[in-house]
């Protein structure tokens, strides 16, 4: 005999206390099949997981506890499965959105693992190309970028003026 669980939507979550199972209806338009698989896989060790198609656009997930449990335990099971389902669906979406970046990083990693270039590669390499273009100075070290001048240090212009004064015979300073 199925009944609703406290705090759970009755149209989506039902419990059968006699069988010790909870029945969830999952909207297939919100949760892809692989997200349901991922969530189900996490629960295989804890309970018996049964998947079915409730209707064309919905999955039915039946979780049967391996150990006898009460309504509170079934409610926790349903809640944890729902959380895992949401996390799986979101992880899958993040992976989809970042596919280009993941592929790029993976390719770079494999490229680095291929080892150093051969002599033929070096011979074919175009060294005339600018090695690095850094107009904003992003690659410059913090020390170089924000180095304070020393208190007694002279600038180039001041040094040049002093040398000129020393060599000028009419200046009177040089002897």
């Amino acid at each position: 005999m199925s009944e609703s669980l406290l705090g759970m939507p009755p149209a989506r979550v039902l419990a059968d206390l006699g069988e010790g199972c909870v029945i969830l209806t999952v909207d297939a338009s919100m949760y892809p099949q692989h997200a349901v698989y991922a969530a189900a896989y996490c629960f295989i060790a804890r309970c018996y997981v049964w998947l079915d198609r409730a209707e064309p656009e919905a999955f039915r997930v039946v979780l049967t506890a391996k150990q006898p449990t009460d309504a509170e335990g079934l409610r926790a099971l349903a809640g944890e499965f729902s959380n895992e389902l949401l996390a799986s669906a979101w992880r899958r979406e993040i992976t989809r959105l970042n596919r280009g970046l993941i592929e790029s990083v993976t390719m770079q990693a494999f490229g680095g693992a291929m080892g150093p270039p051969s002599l033929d590669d070096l011979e074919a390499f175009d060294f005339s190309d600018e090695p690095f273009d850094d107009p904003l100075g992003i690659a410059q070290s913090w020390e170089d970028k924000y180095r304070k001048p020393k208190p007694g240090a002279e600038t180039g212009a001041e040094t040049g003026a002093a040398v000129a004064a020393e060599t000028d015979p009419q200046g009177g300073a040089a002897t």
Partner: protein
Amino acid sequence: MTLRFHRALYAGTAIDAALGRFAQLANTGFDRREEVDHFVVEVTASSEARAKKIAHELANFALGLTIEQGGPDR
């Protein structure tokens, strides 16, 4: 006890592999047949409780193999 595995969710090869693994159980019988949308497995054992437990374990095993192979057969 009857198990009805939906074809869109379970791989037939995974069910066969699970049946092969469970076939060694003593005093237990499995009868597999196919319907339009389902693979159907009848589990018989010395008692109803034992048949139910074996059916649950068989379903879990088949689901795990299906997920590990990436979904149902194409």
